[in-house]
């Protein structure tokens, strides 16, 4: 596929790896490796799928960040989605990613097995089509995602408003990338040296959400594409900045991302949504102004009205929050690069992709899930 195959070219990869090796060797020597956090789960996926971490020299290490909207989905949102799906007249539409995420009373997959109506869709527009085709069914779209995914949701809501569709609404858990990064970087023990920035968020937002990283924490950021060549180029660019003691935002993913982002994608979002005072994150707790909520003019599309104990309109669901299901969970330490997934006492034992206990085991993009699937299949095979 164009713009894919070229960026997987083994020769390019080999040369980049060699360049990284040389550049890494030129870095000042120190005891622990240089840690680069890929913020986005998509990058984590590429790293594991192609084994990029194993191509890096010993003194360079990837740390897997919080940027997977599924991993950070709190149980309370799943609980609400399950409750809505169980309503007899309601069809809950969800991205496939959210189907396995466990709430307090099981996942959407389990709810469907128990009789709730749940439909996996690819695009918010597919949920809209469901509502159009089944006027007697209340269609609820479980809208999750970061800034990249918000425009599609906003466009669907605007289309529903334009058509006067009354049987379509949205259970909204759209979140923003900057607040969790700020929370992470506030940790005084954080050892991360540089950041691989999420290219698909950036092409919408531009550099804005990441500017505080060099500005306030003096760490470099490279906005990266998702193919191996992209990622390795980004690593190379980060190493260059580190070697030169620089800390600025660079864009590797220039074929789509710009400093300013895409205002055409932000416009529908700004029209339909406003920042929510608080949003809950699995593994991170509640973060102020970290989510989006429907503006007053779009309240009619808020699915929380259908819930029995509906919260005040316009607030993100926060009831009955548990940020971590199990106190032994070491997600926070893994997230901040202090522990490898396999070093969590639950890893591969109680916590597996089929029975995830922590946020990072939930989606195949989560650091622990990726580690489990590509490196191990359970503790019997040892920690590495």
């Amino acid at each position, binding site marked *: *596929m164009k713009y894919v195959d070229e960026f997987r070219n083994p020769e*390019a990869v080999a040369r980049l790896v*060699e360049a990284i090796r*040389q550049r890494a060797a030129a870095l000042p020597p120190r005891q622990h490796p240089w840690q680069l956090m890929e913020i986005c789960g998509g990058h984590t996926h590429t790293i594991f799928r192609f084994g990029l971490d194993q191509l890096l020299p010993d003194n360079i290490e990837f740390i897997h960040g919080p940027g997977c909207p599924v991993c950070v989905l709190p149980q309370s949102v799943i609980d609400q989605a399950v409750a809505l799906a169980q309503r007899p007249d309601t069809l809950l539409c969800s991205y496939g990613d959210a189907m396995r995420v466990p709430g307090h009373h099981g996942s959407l997959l389990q709810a469907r097995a128990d009789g709730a109506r749940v439909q996996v869709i690819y695009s918010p527009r597919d949920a809209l089509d469901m509502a159009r085709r089944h006027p007697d069914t209340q269609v609820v779209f479980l809208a999750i995602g970061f800034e990249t995914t918000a425009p*599609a949701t906003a466009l669907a809501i605007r*289309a529903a408003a334009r058509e006067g569709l009354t049987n379509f609404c949205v259970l909204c858990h759209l979140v923003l990338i900057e607040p969790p990064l700020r929370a992470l970087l506030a940790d005084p023990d954080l050892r991360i040296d540089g950041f691989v920035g*999420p290219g*698909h968020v950036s092409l919408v937002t531009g550099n804005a959400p990441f500017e505080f990283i060099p500005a306030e924490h003096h760490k470099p950021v490279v906005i990266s594409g998702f193919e191996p060549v992209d990622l390795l180029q980004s690593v190379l660019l980060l190493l260059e900045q580190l070697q030169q003691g620089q800390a600025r935002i660079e864009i590797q993913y220039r074929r789509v991302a710009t400093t300013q982002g895409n205002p*055409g*994608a932000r416009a529908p979002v700004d029209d339909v949504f406003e920042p929510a005072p608080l949003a809950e994150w699995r593994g991170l707790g509640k973060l102020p102004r970290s989510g989006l909520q429907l503006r007053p003019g779009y309240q009619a599309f808020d699915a929380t009205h259908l819930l029995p104990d509906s919260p005040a309109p316009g607030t993100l669901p926060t009831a009955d929050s548990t940020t971590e299901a199990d106190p032994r969970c070491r997600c926070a330490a893994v997230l901040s690069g202090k522990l490898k997934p396999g070093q969590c006492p639950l890893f591969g034992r109680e916590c597996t992709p089929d029975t995830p206990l922590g946020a990072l085991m939930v989606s195949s993009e989560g650091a622990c899930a990726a580690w489990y699937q590509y490196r191990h299949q359970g503790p019997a095979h040892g920690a590495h």
Partner: protein
Amino acid sequence: MCLAVPACILSISDARHCLAIADSGGVQRQIDLSCVTGDIAAEDLIGRWVLVHVGVALAVISDEEAQASLEIWSQLQDLP
């Protein structure tokens, strides 16, 4: 997060709602162009490549930048 794929615009399927048929590696799906038609008319995107996420085109791919990106590694052999 945010799985997005390059797709080539084949045709405009619904001009009023800014919908187009796009091809990714031999499979076609309807996508929404309305986020990328600020500076360019939908019809002018036919034959161009866009980056699609959950059915919405979020960026027009700059082929020049892509080529530039790819040239970096061919220059790498000259690296010290």
